[in-house]
């Protein structure tokens, strides 16, 4: 007899949803293999903002998730637009250029609300309105971004803690420091166990079914370089250093089929202050997205993008890559004191370099061609504008640079002339990869022979085919929990069958 009914590899949102779901669906002996030690547990979920995008027809449907919201926020439901299936699916189609997998995206969107309620009720994940992320105050009403009203209380940290607490309360065993190395397949072709490495060496754990929820390959420089390219190879990792593509590799070793955009990932400008991996305690606060109010120069002292082309939401992905293409994969964002109050709160996680003149500032930066940097800033300032000419940070203000400055700055092109001047470093940071494995509607992994592999399921970042080029914010966690829940249920059924 197997030691376990279900082994879950990984311990982020998707994996723990799978473990809880397996237990809920009758699997008695469920173990979670977390490769990271206790203090690094929880995968990318810990780093996330905890935002949950889901479809609903009537804003009041969300009431049970956010008790007290109506008292806390005036006219709460008046500011929320319905976000029906078609809108959510339409957003997925739009940002992926129509390439999202039709079957999987339908499962995701159709189950999204039910998934979030299940996370709340069964997963015991407390939730709250995502006020600081997706709300805009307008007159006496708070207006909410479409589909993005609810988040896990205390963001990814709270979400991760809630999942672990629930899993432990349900009697699910969690093994820290247990790195899955290899899947064991019996003669019938069925996956029947996992070979692991822990502090005591190698062991084999037997199970009736296995769920892989081990994340993508964003932390693996070899795989990044190979699949996405040298620029992304140079990126810093914003999330867990443990997402090394182990699950993908293990599954492909026994014939799993890759699918989706293996050359794609979510990447954004982040601080260059840290090493290859941003510190865990900073969670998602490594982002450096207030560049529309800055001038960005590379180490050669040159500007290389139109910082004010669009709000950051529309430019971060390409600018993250643009910075990675610069010498040293680094740039400096230079602000003067008139826009400091507009910086995203996430800037507080690093200390800027500060000086009273641009000359002194450039002297303090690691720019190789300092003379060029001063020429660049001078040319910019000559083409730039005054706040009094119509600067408006709340919208594209068309306050662009004069003349033929190259590249231009099309909006918010304020002259840098109000000392002190502040410089923040920026590089490109990778969040997660889009390439994954082919799965059935039951989250069972499909082989390169187009036959499902018995006993093997996956969820989370490992599910391929949902995201191409981009993804709608708040979809990752809901997709993780949706397919985690399905994978756990399928694995439990298979274990009983």
């Amino acid at each position: 007899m197997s030691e376990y009914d279900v082994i879950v590899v990984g311990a982020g949102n998707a994996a723990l949803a799978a473990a809880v779901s397996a237990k809920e669906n009758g699997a008695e002996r469920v173990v979670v293999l977390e490769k990271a030690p206790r203090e690094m547990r929880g995968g990318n979920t810990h780093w996330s903002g905890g935002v949950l995008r889901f479809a609903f027809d009537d804003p009041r449907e969300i009431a049970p998730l956010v008790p007290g919201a109506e008292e806390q926020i005036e006219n709460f439901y008046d500011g929320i637009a319905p976000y029906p299936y078609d809108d959510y699916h339409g957003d997925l189609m739009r940002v992926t250029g129509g390439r999202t997998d039709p079957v999987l995206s339908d499962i995701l969107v159709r189950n999204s609300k039910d998934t979030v309620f299940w996370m709340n009720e069964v997963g015991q994940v407390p939730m709250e309105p995502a006020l600081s992320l997706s709300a805009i105050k307008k007159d006496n009403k708070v207006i909410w971004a479409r589909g993005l009203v609810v988040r896990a209380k205390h963001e990814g940290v709270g979400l991760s803690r809630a999942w672990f607490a629930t899993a432990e309360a349900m009697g699910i065993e969690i093994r820290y420091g247990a790195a899955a190395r290899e899947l064991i397949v019996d003669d019938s072709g069925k996956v029947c166990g996992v070979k692991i490495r822990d502090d005591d060496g190698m062991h084999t754990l037997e199970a009736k079914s296995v769920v892989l929820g081990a994340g993508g390959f964003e932390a693996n420089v070899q795989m990044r370089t190979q699949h996405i390219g040298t620029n992304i190879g140079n990126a810093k990792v914003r999330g867990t250093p443990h997402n090394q593509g182990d699950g993908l590799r293990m599954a492909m070793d026994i014939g799993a089929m890759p699918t989706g955009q293996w050359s794609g990932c979510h990447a954004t400008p982040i601080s260059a202050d840290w090493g290859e991996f941003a510190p865990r305690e900073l969670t998602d606060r490594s982002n450096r997205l207030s560049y529309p109010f800055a001038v960005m120069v590379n180490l050669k002292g040159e500007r290389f993008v139109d910082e004010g082309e669009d709000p950051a939401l529309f430019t971060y992905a390409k600018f993250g890559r643009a910075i990675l293409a610069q010498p040293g994969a680094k740039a400096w964002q230079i602000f003067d004191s008139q826009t400091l109050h507009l910086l995203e709160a996430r800037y507080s996680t690093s200390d800027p370099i500060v000086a009273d003149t641009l000359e002194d500032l450039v002297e303090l930066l690691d720019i190789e061609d300092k003379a060029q940097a001063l020429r660049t800033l001078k040319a910019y300032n000559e083409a730039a504008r005054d706040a009094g000419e119509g600067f408006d940070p709340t919208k594209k203000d068309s306050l662009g640079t004069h003349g033929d400055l190259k590249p231009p700055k099309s909006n918010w092109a304020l002259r840098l002339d109000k000392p002190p001047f502040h410089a923040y470093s920026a590089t490109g940071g990778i969040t997660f990869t889009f390439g994954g494995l082919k799965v059935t509607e039951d989250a069972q992994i499909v082989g390169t022979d187009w036959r499902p592999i018995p006993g093997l399921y996956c969820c989370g970042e490992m599910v391929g085919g949902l995201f191409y080029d981009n993804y709608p914010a708040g979809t990752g966690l809901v997709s993780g929990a949706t397919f985690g829940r399905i994978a756990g249920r399928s694995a439990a059924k298979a274990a009983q069958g």
Partner: protein
Amino acid sequence: MTQTQTIAERLAQRIVAFDGSVITPKARERALIGIVDTVAVMLAGAHTPCVATLRKVPGIADASGPCTLVAQADKVSMLDAALVNGTAAHALDYDDFSSVFGGHQSAPLVPALFALAEAERSSGKDVVTAYAVGVETEIRLARAVHFHHYDKGWHPTATLGTIGAAAATARLLGLSAEKTAIALALAVSQAAGVKANFGTMTKPFHVGMCARAGLLSTLLAREGFTANPGAFEHPQGFFEVFNGPGTYDTNRLFENWADPLELEDDGIVVKAYPCCGSTHAAIKAALLLRAEASLKPGEIASVEVLPHGRRLKHTDTPHPSTELQAKFSVQYVIARALLDGAVKLEHFDEAAISDAAVTELLARTEAKAHPDMPDDADSQWAAEVVVHTTDGRRLAHRIDNLMANGGAIPNSVSGMWEKFMDCAEAAHLPGDMGGAVFERLETLESASDMSQVLRLMKGAPARREEDKTSAGTYVAGDPAPETQWVP
């Protein structure tokens, strides 16, 4: 050990020789809980009038230095950080305490240790060990001088805390036994604080001063400052002056030193709710009742609160109208517990106290001494809460001894999450860093550089009210815009 050694020297020897491996898993968890609890209340206390007033004095924390003032934008000297953060740690009187100590053992230690550790870039593991040394020193001293010391009018948190803070910081800095003894003797001369000032801003100020004094003792000793290592037993030394002849027993200071650690003592209490401790048994009963019955506020017809009579005398306040009255109203806190499933800091402002839902429930809430809990009962930390529901059910939950088996302290640091996040919210850290700070502290022993831990607790510069926009800065005409937030 020789007969000629003084008490300070003997103590110093133990502090220097303290072996971190004697910290059992239970003691380790308790140490982390004490540190997490202190940071929580330090964050919550950072913006109190007490701290703001302290900072108005010219020369206090107005020059920059290497150390973080929690939840504030400035970095100041070690001594200023210990003073201001120490005062914040006790500003709400919401920090942990020990019945053996007769005071608050963590608040004097953590701010001093953190200031030193930030400047010296110490490891988290060394801070935890030094904290254990500090608690051991404080509470062993308390065993030697109590309760005469307490009854006489000294505030042990401040007097013994100063010496504990010197012991802890000397250990963290790695002073020799000789210099550690000097630091302890220096601390003796700075120990101060009388109970006459309880109930005023001066009580938390005691803690700030003792954290600063303990740290200053260590820093002076490091530089070669002199003091009398006989300062404890001298006829004009600590025991004779602060206690008096025949009122102390120095043997108890060294008896069973660190075996077991004082951290394992079940007299340690973490305040779970920001209100009078005499209401806590009833609150716990109400919360458990609410959870067990999945009770909804609308189902409550009436409430009976039945604490032990001794707990009710100063908490029988049926209709509180001020923050202080609410903290001493068992009726109010039970109504809050039943309505909200929690008793939090935010429940003690004027708006919350006059909230219609709560005043309406208070009208149906009655408190009286429990008929079956006699005055001479073994445990007087007991209460029962009874709820009559609108559909005629009678629900009851009784707590017989809140303190039993270490029941007043969580089993693990995880149990501190809710209190910590409640306190962190009050600190308004930029970008809601509370969760990250908690997780960093929860695994503090793996932190290699405390300055990186402290920087997570720094506050944002004061901003203009109109700039406090949410993430949606770009207002387009669209009534339901795209999110502007980038994951």
